[in-house]
């Protein structure tokens, strides 16, 4: 009973709270990093260096008036943010935060497929939000969003096929373990796939330069134009939770998940005696989950950095990149991977 | 009470009938398409249930094919629907009484 119910429930509670709290701090981090990029200070008023801003922001959102437009479809209008957030949170059930079974909720044999399929449900939140608002800007944005998410999902899924081919398993833990066995992280084996998944991830989380569904300057905020208060906060949470998901997936699939860096320094420098002082075993002292979160942080930082730097693509350019660049490269990558795997290894 | 394949078969039959009713009674062609999806799902449930009962995964393989067919059907069906709607401004199945336009 304890093993079957209590411990999983406990883990779920920890992960959910962890994600939600880290989202609030993610927002603070983003504001701070972008501020530094723009030679500003960012939030400084609440707490030392504005650290407590992370707590004040959600409180503000909760206390705000929650408005439902008169002609909106009330049920759908309420359901949409929930539909948007829940898949983002469900995905965390198969993310391996550490090497030990203690650090992930579950490991299923279709883990990666599970992540892909659950994230694909997230699009409903956006479409329905646009439709239920009964307003033109959200509707345009949600049509954009639907097309964008489906297109990039295809590209990402295709790309992940080559990773699956390399790893030979669909289980998230299995993929990381495969990287441990070969000694090379898939980021080095499949650099093209990494870049594609990262770009696709930017598009799927609606981040600049692919943030068309919520392009403030064009569509006045996009699909959540009509939302306020807590329901808006849910969309906000969903976006950042999705960012964390992408960072976690990229970490696990390409950069060795919880593994420490330089897994095979001996294999790299077998005969160089002078490098023996490079005994990196001390890195093992650092717990596996620290490595995981450290790597994740790098990618989250990259997300923010990109947001501070790049302008936004246009809708047709976005679709062109998705269909005419990413998908062909992903297909070619699958073919190359299969050929190498079958005949050359 | 143990759940036997018969239970799944009955569930499948009931869902099948819901789909059939949808196809026969509704006039909104989008709903009719969705009813067809319900019918296909009913079949799938049956196939998967029997795959487990017989401990033979062929049933599940068939479901993969059914899903592929469903995807093809949805794509072509909705394409026809859009083309039709563009010309006649309706999705009423009763008004779909021409073979060409």
């Amino acid at each position, binding site marked *: 009973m304890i093993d079957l119910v209590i411990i999983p429930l406990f883990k779920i509670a920890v992960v959910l709270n962890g994600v939600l709290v880290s989202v609030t701090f993610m927002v603070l981090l983003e504001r701070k990093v972008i501020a530094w990029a723009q*030679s500003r200070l960012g939030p400084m008023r609440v707490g030392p260096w504005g650290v407590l801003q992370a707590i004040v922001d959600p409180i503000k959102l909760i206390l705000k008036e929650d408005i439902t437009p008169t002609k909106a479809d009330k049920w759908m209008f309420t359901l949409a943010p929930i539909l948007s957030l829940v898949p983002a949170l469900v995905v965390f059930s198969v993310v391996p935060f550490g090497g030990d079974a203690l650090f992930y909720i579950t490991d299923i044999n279709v883990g990666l497929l599970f992540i892909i399929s659950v994230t694909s449900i997230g699009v409903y939140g956006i479409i329905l939000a646009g439709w239920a608002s009964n307003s033109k*800007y959200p509707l345009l944005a949600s049509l954009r969003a639907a097309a964008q998410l489906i297109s990039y999902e295809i590209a990402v899924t295709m790309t992940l096929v080559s990773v699956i081919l390399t790893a030979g398993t669909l289980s998230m833990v299995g993929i990381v373990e495969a990287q441990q066995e070969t000694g090379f992280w898939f980021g080095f084996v499949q650099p093209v796939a990494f870049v594609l998944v990262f770009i696709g991830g930017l598009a799927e989380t609606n981040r600049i330069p692919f943030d068309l569904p919520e392009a*403030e300057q*064009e569509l006045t905020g996009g699909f959540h134009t009509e939302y306020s208060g807590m329901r808006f906060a849910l969309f906000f949470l969903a976006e950042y939770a999705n960012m964390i998901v992408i960072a976690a997936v990229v970490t696990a699939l390409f950069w060795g998940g919880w593994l420490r860096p330089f897994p095979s320094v001996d294999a790299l420098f077998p005969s160089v005696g002078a490098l023996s002082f490079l005994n990196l075993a001390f890195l093992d002292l650092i717990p596996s989950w620290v490595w995981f979160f450290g790597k994740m942080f790098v990618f989250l930082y990259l997300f923010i950095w990109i947001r501070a730097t790049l*302008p*936004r693509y246009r*809708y047709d350019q976005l679709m062109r990149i998705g269909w005419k660049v990413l998908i062909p490269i992903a297909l070619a990558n699958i073919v190359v991977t299969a050929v190498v795997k079958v005949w050359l290894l | 009470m143990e759940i036997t394949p018969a239970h799944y078969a009955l569930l499948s039959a009931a869902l099948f009938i819901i789909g059939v009713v949808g196809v026969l009674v509704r006039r909104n062609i989008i709903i009719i398409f969705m009813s067809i999806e319900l019918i296909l799902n009913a079949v799938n449930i049956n196939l998967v249930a029997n795959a487990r009962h017989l401990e033979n995964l062929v049933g599940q393989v068939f479901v993969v094919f059914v899903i592929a067919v469903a995807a093809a059907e949805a794509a072509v069906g909705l394409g026809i629907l859009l083309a039709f*709607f563009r010309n006649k401004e309706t999705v009423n199945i009763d008004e779909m009484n021409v073979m060409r336009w």
Partner: protein
Amino acid sequence: MAIEAAPMFDTDELVLNMGPQHPSTHGVLRVILRLNGERVVDADVVIGYIHRGIEKLTENRDWTQIILLTDRMDYVSAATSNLGYCETVEKLMEVEVPRRARYIRTILAELQRVASHCLWLGTHAMDIGAMTVFMYAFRERELILDLFEEYCGARLTYNCMRIGGLPLDIPTGWGRKVRAFCDVMDSRIPEYEELLTNNRIWLERTRGIGVISGEAATALGLCGPPLRGSGVYRDVRKDEPYAAYDEFEFDVPLGTNGDTYDRYLIRLEEFRQSLRIIRQAVDGMPDGPVMGKVPRLIKPKAGETYHAIESPKGELGYFIVSDGRSTNPYRLRVRPPSFCNLQGLKPLIIGHLVADVVALIGTIDVVIGEVDR
């Protein structure tokens, strides 16, 4: 509003009302778009949401009070509005402005051009999604506002010129600070360029967008950077020099393709040319009074005159009629560059996507306060 009344005959068409409350219409511009998918089929530009009747108001103000009203037209470029008005009245009264005053006016006008272009660059880049450029550009604009504040005490609506000269001489050391600003600005322009000029996304978003030929631009009455972007040589500073522009060397950048990217490059080059003018003016600043001989009661003789200057947005002209009897103008009419450039919006946006509409409103650089007056 012809578009609103028209029936939606094609189901694929959607009428989208952009503005007057919209983040990217730079004020209260309203654009009614008829979309096919995301492509603009037809557009209707609606103005007048902040019409304050400035031209009519001037008929009840005396000549000096009107300077204050001109501040409120192009509120991001108040100094050039002041300059244009004062020079027109001076032309009407045939007043000689001291050389030192003309030099300072030139410096103020060029600083204002840099400030206005900073604001344009920031908002234009922001419209296309590059948020950091916005903060960078405003950082430099802030320095200019500080300089203005030191000169006249105001940061936005300066009211910094008088008929016949200037209300104040420049403070001690102000010229040195302006020089220092020029050096800072010179080092900051490469920062903008690094973020945008060769940025692939920026190129894709601006190249070939909103192309307008030189003939079409002339026919529409465009002026300023949008006109020069199409390769037409027209700059009031060169063609009909005013203030002290005839004493300085500077180039007028011209575009070749007439697209959004060319207009962007031109404005960036105008940053450099403005700095060049400011440096020359500061270095060659003559001594002398800053106020010419003007009667205490300003009352131009009966007559009419038109005078134009090159504001950051384009040709800013004032047409003034004086009846010679009262202490206020009989009629004052402004030829605002924003208003004329806005004529180009509709031909520019038709056939483009919604996202380009935003970029194109940005590229012609309108200030609705000046359009509506």
